[in-house]
């Protein structure tokens, strides 16, 4: 089978089951329960990004902390949008890209990273 990319086919493949309002409500309620269950872990990841941004500003960011922050940002980028937090995914993805090099980013962008981490935290905390 020729590989295809589902992002392109998603809109084309909408069906009755996906547009069933009762099913959508049921799924939404179940997702809210999962969000509540995983919130402590997600908050912990957001904390790690804030800590990494602060360490970069203070010139104390270790390689291990940078790699961990990169991994956590990658996880958040995949997770937040799944819980309908699209802006959260965008911010996490930007953080991930800025931390994706072999070396730490210049500490001149520490303020920007801190702002990203703060906004991410706000988004996480404000989801009901």
């Amino acid at each position, binding site marked *: 089978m020729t590989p*295809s990319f589902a992002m392109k086919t*998603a809109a084309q493949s909408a069906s009755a089951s996906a547009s069933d309002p009762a*099913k959508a409500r049921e799924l939404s309620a179940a*997702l809210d329960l999962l969000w509540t269950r995983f919130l402590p872990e997600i908050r912990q990841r957001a904390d790690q990004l804030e800590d990494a941004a602060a360490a970069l500003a203070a010139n104390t960011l270790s390689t291990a902390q940078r790699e961990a922050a990169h991994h956590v940002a990658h996880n958040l980028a995949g997770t937040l949008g799944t819980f309908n937090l699209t802006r959260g995914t965008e911010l996490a993805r930007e953080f991930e890209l800025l931390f994706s090099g072999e070396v730490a980013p210049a500490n001149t962008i520490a303020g920007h990273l801190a702002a990203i981490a703060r906004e991410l935290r706000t988004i996480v905390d404000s989801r009901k």
Partner: protein
Amino acid sequence: MPRKILIIDDEDDIREVAALSLESVAGWEVVTASSGAQGLARAVEHQPDAILLDVMMPGMDGPSTFRELRKNPATAKIPVLLLTAKVQTSDQRRFADLGVESVLFKPFDPLTLANEISGVLGWK
């Protein structure tokens, strides 16, 4: 008989959301595994209709797991869809070149995930 899907992902939240989505929206049976090694064993044991396989996992990652699935005659023909949060074009090309049926992207929409899979695999 409902479709049976194996989800292999080390992230608990993603695994559970995907499972919830496929079970509640499509009524599919879902089996899960939290690592590549566990996924290989579950694939042999459960013989799913398709496998949703995360790319970035510690230990055996998605591409390595996929290669092992293809090596084993018991799992070689099971369709595999990679699941990734990587959005760079070079990564996407690399994944497509592996020979998987498709690459799905995180974040996914829980409401349409089953339809995406069905569409890609030509399921009605």
